[in-house]
């Protein structure tokens, strides 16, 4: 159907012997395989702590790697620039909601062509990384958000971790005293704010295709109620997730919504005892939270041999064994369901995230590359409601009709 696809497939078939040689050279310890001399360039926004992981997989597929860590905020701009100058790296890490947008531009190679699939991974990973039926990225590890709570403050107030909205509201009210708010979350006017509101929005039946629904209104009203009760600071509309974490560590919030990437800072805080539970829902049903984490993709670089090797490399990163290694380095959750269950047993601090990720939803699952527009509308509605500029239902309607 697609000529390029056919050529790619033909090339893939032609390269099988080469790949096999590369494979055997990897396990045999020899350096003379077909792909053995290749150097893969990798681009991500991680830290140097990721380098040993790359080296392990490089050894396994028989390649050398050149690792390029860029600043998180600058990655997409750099990718676009590289796309136009045809200098994309061999292996590209992307934040999962960006995968479909970049795939839509034609810059990425479908991973199915290289025999990779998302079988055995949590369902949202496939939804997030597929575009028009093809898989473009694989996430070795993922994350989501949950409700952290300060054990000491809760036991002092005689509060148990909440499971429903009513319980959460009552707990937040009870835990508010003096300079301590019962609850904190980020409602900032960026995608971070949208990401934090989504568990309330989705779990209650909200949908990004039409945000002005009674279910969405109910979710927004709930967050507004927390603020009106005085249980959530009015500053939440200006807090990024890192700010929320700081409030929690400083003891100014008894509960907060945040992700597992904050665990290092939380564990480093002296005298802070904390735990987490999945974010409460109105009915107590399982939470539908957004799927986080970054995917590894193989850009179209015209060098078929290297692309094939890059795909093997991505497959290696996503193998169950490597997932556990990566989770150990990053504190995230393996996407392989059985690996994740094992992980939860040995790492109780991430257990609530493992639970949440299973029922998580991909932000781009429904709208694909159009997700950013919906995300902008959602945080705009949250801001309109929390600043008192409009009541929740009017805020959602206003944000929905806003053309940009």
């Amino acid at each position, binding site marked *: 159907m697609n000529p390029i696809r056919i050529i790619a497939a033909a090339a893939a078939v032609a390269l099988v012997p080469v790949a096999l040689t590369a494979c055997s050279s990897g396990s045999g310890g020899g350096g003379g395989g077909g792909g053995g001399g290749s150097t893969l360039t990798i681009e991500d926004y991680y830290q140097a702590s990721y380098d040993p992981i790359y080296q392990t997989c490089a050894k396994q597929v028989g390649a050398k790697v050149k690792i390029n860590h860029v600043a998180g905020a600058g990655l*997409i*701009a750099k990718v*676009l*620039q590289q*796309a*136009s100058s045809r200098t994309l790296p061999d292996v590209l890490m992307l934040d999962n909601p960006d995968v479909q*947008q*970049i795939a*839509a*531009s*034609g*810059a990425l190679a479908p991973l199915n062509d290289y025999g990779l699939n998302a079988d055995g991974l949590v369902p949202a990973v496939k939804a997030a990384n597929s575009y028009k039926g093809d898989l473009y990225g694989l996430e070795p590890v993922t994350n989501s958000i949950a409700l952290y709570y300060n054990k000491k403050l809760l036991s002092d107030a005689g509060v148990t971790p909440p499971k429903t909205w009513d319980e959460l509201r009552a707990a937040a009210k009870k835990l508010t005293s003096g*300079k301590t708010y019962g609850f904190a979350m980020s409602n*900032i*006017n*960026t995608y971070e704010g949208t990401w934090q509101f989504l568990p309330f929005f989705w779990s209650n039946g909200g949908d990004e295709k039409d945000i002005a629904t009674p279910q969405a209104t109910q979710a927004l009203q709930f967050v507004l109620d927390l603020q009106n009760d005085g249980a959530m*600071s*009015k*500053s939440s*509309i*200006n807090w990024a997730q890192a700010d929320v974490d700081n409030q929690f560590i400083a003891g*100014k919030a008894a509960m907060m919504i945040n992700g597992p990437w904050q665990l290092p800072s939380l564990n480093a805080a002296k005298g802070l005892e904390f735990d987490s539970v999945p974010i409460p829902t109105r009915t107590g049903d399982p939470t539908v939270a957004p799927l986080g984490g970054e995917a590894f993709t193989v850009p179209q670089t015209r060098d078929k041999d290297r692309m094939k090797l890059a795909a093997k490399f991505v497959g290696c990163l996503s193998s169950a064994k490597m997932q556990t290694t990566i989770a150990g380095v990053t504190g995230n959750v393996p996407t392989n369901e059985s690996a994740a269950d094992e992980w939860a047993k040995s790492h109780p601090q991430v257990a609530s995230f493992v639970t949440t990720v299973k029922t998580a939803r991909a932000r781009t699952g429904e709208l694909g*590359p159009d997700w*950013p*527009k919906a995300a*902008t509308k959602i945080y*705009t509605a949250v*801001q*309109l409601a*929390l*600043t*008192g*500029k409009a009541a929740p239902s009017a805020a959602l309607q*206003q944000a929905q*009709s*806003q*053309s*940009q």
Partner: protein
Amino acid sequence: MTVSARAGVAAGPLVASGRPGRSRARLASGVTRWLFIAPAVVFVAVFFGYPVVKNVLMSFQDYTTRTFFTGEAPWVGLANYAQTFGSAVFTTTLVNTALFTIGSIVMQFVIGLGLALFFRRNFPLSGFLRGLLLLPWLLPLIASSAVWKWLLDQDSGAINQFLGLFGVPAVPWLVSPGLALVAVIGVNIWLGIPFNTTILYSGLQSVPPELYEAASLDGATGVKAFRYVTWPSIRSVVSVVIVLGIVYTLKVVDIILGLTGGGPANSTQTLATNAYHQSFVNFEFGIGAAISNVLIVVSFLFAVVYISISRKAADE
């Protein structure tokens, strides 16, 4: 500069008489003149001309992430402009841009002039204090906006803690849609004071002291001296400061992004931040280009004012 060079070249052939040797020399000197202006022309064309032309073209195209890989940017005519002007946010950003610019410029100028007049008197440590005044200018913008964000925090910010000593309840500086713009303007005023003070101070230094002596003999001291001596003498400096200030303030992005990111609920969104947001957050480069073209036109009007003022000053 370009104008005078063109006049020179045009004058060349007219003056040239029939002698071949002379005309060759004329030609050589004409070429030399062009060579002298070539660096400036190339610089302007590459670093100003190309981006502006590209920006104008982009605003008529559906320029998205896809374009970077495929190179295809379908021509959409005025659709980007229609969407920009038709958006509910556009009016808000326009009003905010006007309020932000006027508020910043007026206060920066008044405070800057006051400080410049104050520092004209020599007193112990005046040089040191004047140096200290430059500090806001020397700090990286993103760092000072982060510090201001902490200072202005509603619950634990230093400013509210201080006001609390006098029994003032916590002011929602960056949180209330009504106050956020005021807070952002305030920070921008703080940032702009060094520029205004420095330029106005140097303007004041150039006023000859004899004028004041003569004026005081005529009975003009204090406010009258300012009204009849100082103000007329620094008027051209004043107009330069104000026009440059307007152009700088119109395009402020970093301080707003650092403090509020345009929020809460778009209450501090200006043309510049909205253009940034469309281009680099939503990746709608066509719409971003359309908004920034509106900004360019506004800035250009003030640039024309600046040029005519400085030319008038040069003529005087």
